[in-house]
């Protein structure tokens, strides 16, 4: 495998191919930074360009946009609490508090480096274990997906910073929003108050509204409380200390693993991976109370997860010719138009293409790291611009970005509605992040659960009899038990602390 990788490198390292790799990741990064405008827009616009290119260069270009956008998405999340892509939503949770406490440079550095490492892990899996991952992924049928989502939902309520009940309510609300549209199993229209809702609420509208517009509303008339950013950025302030770096090793490892797994599983991707990584990081942490206030592991884990996922997302495309999501479908379309039929024969028939593309990921991630580190200084200096001058442009980008998705005015208005909702929610101490997770996972659970029932004649025991889903069921039971136990012990702890405090302070 390693010599095939070298073959791939030799394909990529030619100047004319390298140019496309660079251009692809650069454009992807740019797209990721812009809120609302997504990889799918960029790729579909560049599709005609690929007609004039050979298949390898086309794919390298388009792929670069795909995983490049995962680097850019975190920048606006950290600086402005505005996710550039839905998978960067979780980055806001830790990145923005870091920026507000004058550690934006550090946050950007950690994000870039975690993204790089996550991407590299993804590439390594592509090189070493693409076929085994495919085999495993194919073993995941409807029951397994359903159990996976249940685990995800159990973890989801952990994301919210505030009270558990409120977070849970937000997850359920998110599920409700995800139900809008045609029911996948019967085609029945649910909550379709107007025809524009027939295809459901768009994730971009929800994310940009709840996180983008609501932030603009919050800060447009009131200057955000923020220390003045430094006049010049010292690299020493940006690079994490030894202790900080050490604390990031395991989160990055965990994040990359989770990301690699969800990337390879069709139908799930970077967004779910980043949520999952964050939630599990918080679950496994010894100091869960630090989350939400600028906790570096909480930043590193999802950042490495979403990049790992965007790399392994190519596994079903490259090994099976089956797109894992809509963006992959575009890329496969580009291949088909170039006369290449993706599929299990691709690795045999077109080894230069296969390994060239994988090698381009390797090179692309390096390019992105090299681009991003020096840019940190510039991004931090951007924070000196008063918010009042920035927010109209942000609003503009959100409007145009959301509109351009489905050429839909309704989407823009929905974004506004979610913006107002998100703003009010936060005022009343409801966290928006769990809504997004419920929105993405809820329909996935319902579809897969009902499909399972359809496939196996309504037999519940199937969840226990199929090996993988049995394991997952046990995991979810463990999670539930653990959650209850830790909730109880937390309550006992606070009760003890309160008693201690009361005996120490004099009675009023």
């Amino acid at each position, binding site marked *: 495998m390693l010599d095939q990788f070298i073959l791939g490198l030799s394909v990529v390292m030619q100047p004319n191919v390298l140019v496309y790799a660079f251009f692809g990741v650069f454009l992807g990064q740019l797209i990721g930074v812009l809120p609302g405008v997504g990889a*799918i*827009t960029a*790729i*579909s*616009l560049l*599709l*005609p360009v690929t*007609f004039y290119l050979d298949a390898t260069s086309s794919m390298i270009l388009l792929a670069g946009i795909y995983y490049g956008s995962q680097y850019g998405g975190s920048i606006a999340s950290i600086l402005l609490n505005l996710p550039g892509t839905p998978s960067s939503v979780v980055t806001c949770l830790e990145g923005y508090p870091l920026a507000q406490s004058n550690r934006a440079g550090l946050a950007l550095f950690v994000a870039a480096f975690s993204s790089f490492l996550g991407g590299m892990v993804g590439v390594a899996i592509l090189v070493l274990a693409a076929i085994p991952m495919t085999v495993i992924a*194919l*073993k*995941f*049928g*409807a029951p397994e997906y359903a159990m996976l989502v249940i685990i995800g939902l159990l973890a989801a309520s952990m994301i919210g910073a505030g009270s558990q009940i409120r977070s849970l309510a937000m997850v359920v609300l998110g599920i409700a929003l995800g139900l809008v549209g*045609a029911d*996948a*199993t*019967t*085609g*029945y*229209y649910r909550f379709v108050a107007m*025809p*524009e809702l*027939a*295809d459901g609420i768009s994730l971009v509208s929800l994310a940009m509204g709840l996180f983008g517009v609501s932030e603009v509303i919050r800060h447009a008339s009131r200057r955000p409380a923020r220390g003045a950013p430094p006049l010049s950025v010292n690299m020493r302030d940006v690079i994490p200390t030894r202790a900080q770096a050490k604390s990031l090793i395991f989160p990055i490892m965990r994040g990359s693993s989770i990301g690699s797994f969800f990337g390879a599983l*069709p*139908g799930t991707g970077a967004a779910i991976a980043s949520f999952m990584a964050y939630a599990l990081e918080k679950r496994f942490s010894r100091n869960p109370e630090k989350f939400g206030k600028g906790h570096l592991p909480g930043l590193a884990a999802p950042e490495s997860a979403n990049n790992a996922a965007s790399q392994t997302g190519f596994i*079903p495309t490259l090994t*099976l*010719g*089956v*797109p*894992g999501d*809509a963006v992959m*479908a*575009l890329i496969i*379309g580009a291949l*088909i*138009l170039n*006369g290449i*039929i*993706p*599929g*299990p*024969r691709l690795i045999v028939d077109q080894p230069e293409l296969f390994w060239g593309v994988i090698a381009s990921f390797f090179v692309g991630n390096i390019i992105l790291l090299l681009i991003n580190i020096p840019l940190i200084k510039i991004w931090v200096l951007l924070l000196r611009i008063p918010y009042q001058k920035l927010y109209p442009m942000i609003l503009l980008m959100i409007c145009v970005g959301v509109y351009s998705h*489905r*050429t*839909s005015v309704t989407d823009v208005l929905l974004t506004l509605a979610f913006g107002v909702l998100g703003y009010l929610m936060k005022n009343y101490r409801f966290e928006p992040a769990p809504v997004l997770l419920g929105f993405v996972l809820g329909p996935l659970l319902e*579809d897969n659960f009902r*499909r399972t029932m*359809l*496939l196996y004649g309504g037999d519940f025991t199937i969840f226990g009899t199929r090996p993988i889903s049995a394991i997952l069921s046990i995991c979810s039971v463990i999670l539930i038990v653990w959650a209850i136990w830790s909730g109880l012990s937390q309550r006992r702890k606070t009760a003890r602390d309160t008693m201690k405090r009361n005996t120490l302070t004099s009675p009023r």
Partner: protein
Amino acid sequence: MFKKLLTTLPLVAALAMPAAAQEFPDRALRIVHGFGPGGNADTVSRIMAEQMSKGLGQPVVVESRPGAGGTVASGYVSNEDPDGYTMQLMVGGHAVAAALYESLPYESVDGFTFISTLGQFPFMVATRAGEYDSIEALIAAAAAAPGTIKIGHSGVGSTQHLTGELLDLRTAADFLHIPYKGGAAASTALMGGEVDVVIDTGTVIRPQSEAGVYDILAITSAERWPDAPDVPTVSETVAEGFAVVSWTGIGMPAGVPDEIADRIRTEVHAALAAPNVNKMIASLGAKPSPSTGEEMTALIEGQISVWSEVIESAGIDKR
């Protein structure tokens, strides 16, 4: 200065417009389609747009208005001015929608001026390699064990779904139809063993059939497909008269004057004949099929009645 430029430009444009109605076309045209970026519809639209702009001497822009299976775009186009500048890339789903939806914001046949079909393509009946010797064997198995052989399809109310139901209707088979979100998901399910049959387009099936993972048992067109002459049709084997093709075509709002419609048709046919367009359509598994407006109308009407029958008998809820 910038300000002046920005304010005078629209004024100039506004002044220029009334004087323009001389030679068709005198400004940009557009092809609207009802699907997301990068799908078949979008790709075909873009290639046609590029090619036709050469013949028309004006830019042709592509506009994507996805929603509700393409009906949002159809509703939009149907209400536009029949001045010849708005075209729609229509797909087989147009006929499906006519049968599937209780009420639509447009007339499926009378609301449009049909120009020409672009390409037609069949669906393929695929199973995992080696499981069934032939389509006859599959149908026999499905008839012998009703409700156990599972067909995965790309979504309730999709053409693929209805084709599977039609197969049920026209043969003794009794399949269990399992919905997925798109052909890719259904194909993955077939590979993973979750379902036994998938009926879908070449784009979905060919990667696996070329690799020997799938067998293509039959093809749904009325006659054998030139690209796959060894594959029997459903009609010649298990269900005589079975003919399902999906298609792409160009339509315009109803009431477009004949001269303009004819001009557009000429351009469409010319574009179809161009080698790169030809190649593209073929790569999507379709057969370039220029037609007259009447032929396209007949095709659509025929399909509407077949799908209505299928939806009725399969008990699919109308939307």
